[in-house]
């Protein structure tokens, strides 16, 4: 199957239900190479479930996920990583007792399929690449610290570094600035934009902070109750009354 209308990621009619709850209820999504796409929506809109379906953590009940024209629906997470989709998680998913350096180094080795090596000391492997990534995200100084002991903002940067180590074509970010101080938020988003630009990475992220969303995204997809409510440029979304209603509460008067 050829890549339709040049889309990098194509999601078609994706559905997922938990018991009786329709968490994702027929979502279509098309992300072009090189764009920065934000997914927003109130709590419970289905953003996280959608992410989990794309990255292989959950299997959809119906629908398809195509990446670079290839069907990756329901593949296991490690296969999807090797296909070129990286994912950065919220805070709890780092390797807290590994050092910052080791965390990124292991991600590099895993991506390069070099982890089935039993006797080479890993300390000397991919040192330069690791250092480069750590420098890029501003963690060069902290390389030896245990990942669990660095500040929250730095952990988010580490999370990003681990995802970047997979050399992804598409990077999915799950609330990249959650829990950050305003200063860290600015710094982090600037860094993400810069790296994505430099390495030609397509971004797909969900975020609550509207400053971040409107400052970073090229296009925005708004989800509500498991469906896509609207999609468009930042300006289009800002002026969409349906979106405003979802966010500010419907005015019955």
């Amino acid at each position, binding site marked *: 199957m050829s890549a339709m209308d040049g889309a990098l990621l194509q999601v078609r009619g994706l559905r997922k239900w938990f018991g009786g709850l329709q968490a994702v209820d027929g979502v279509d999504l098309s992300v072009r190479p090189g764009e920065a796409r934000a997914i*927003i929506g*109130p*709590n*419970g809109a289905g953003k996280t479930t959608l992410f989990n379906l794309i990255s292989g953590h959950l299997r959809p009940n119906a629908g398809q996920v195509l990446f670079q024209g290839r069907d990756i629906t329901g593949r296991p997470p490690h296969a999807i990583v090797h296909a070129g989709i990286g994912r950065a998680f919220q*805070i*709890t998913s780092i390797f807290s007792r590994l050092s910052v350096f080791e965390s990124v180094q292991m991600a590099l080795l895993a991506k390069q399929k070099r982890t089935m090596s039993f006797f080479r000391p890993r300390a000397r492997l991919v040192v330069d690449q690791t250092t480069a990534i750590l420098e890029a995200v501003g963690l060069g100084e902290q390389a030896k610290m245990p990942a*669990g002991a660095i*500040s*929250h903002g730095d*952990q988010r940067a580490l999370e990003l570094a681990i995802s970047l180590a997979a050399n992804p074509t598409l990077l999915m970010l799950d*609330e990249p600035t*959650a*829990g*950050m*101080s*305003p200063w860290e*938020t600015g710094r982090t988003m600037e860094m993400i934009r810069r790296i994505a630009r430099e390495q030609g990475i397509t971004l797909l992220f969900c975020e*609550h*902070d*509207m400053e971040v969303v409107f400052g970073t995204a090229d296009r925005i997809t708004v989800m509500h109750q498991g469906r896509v409510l609207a999609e468009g440029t930042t300006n289009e*979304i*800002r002026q969409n009354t349906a*979106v*405003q209603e979802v*966010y*500010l*509460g*419907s*005015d*019955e008067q």
Partner: protein
Amino acid sequence: MDRTNSESELLKLDAINAYYGTSHILFDLSLAVSDGEVVCLLGRNGAGKTTTLLSILGLATVKSGRVWYEGKDVQKMPPYRMARNGIGYVPAGGRVFPNLTVRENLEIVRGAKAPQRWTVQRVFDLFPRLGDLANNAAGGLSGGLRQMLVVGRALMGNPRLLLLDEPTEGLAPIVVRSLEDLFLKLKGTGVAMLLCEQNHRFALKVSDRAYLIDKGQIRYAASTAQVRGSDELHRYLGV
């Protein structure tokens, strides 16, 4: 420490810095609720509303600052003592005891001693539909009924102060309107409330004062009249 809180200040947060795990969530946050006053805390998802409530209840790590209730520092107080001292908590997402019946969810409460005590019957009078389902498992209730149940459960503790975490989330407009009436009625009985909300239309209708919170900091504090229609409201809540 200073006990200069005026008598009317029922709850006072004094420059608290709160953490959840290693992440710093609240930055020098201060707010106050007077006796019988309804105050809302407005902000988007992830702004720090829930952490504010958890800090009061001693469930988040507060590394600096103090929380005063009835003029006492409550940082070391075990949760059940807080409940028995009149703090009622309405958690987000209809956090009922799913494997207990509706009635048991109410009866399980050990609250404060108060002259006018709440009883199961009074709660059922307030929410007749709950009364109809008294012996059903709470886990099977719809979102709206769960919300009523957690409110009713908090009332069963005869609270002097209610902490509410997004009570309208996911509720149909008609249910939200009935909650509006309820809260206004409760306000009449002299219960103080700290109401965390994203739905400012609802919150501003029932509150005396409002705080706007964003990224763990109070950005704006004013009376409801001032807040309504202000630029800040749009900036911190809208799109």
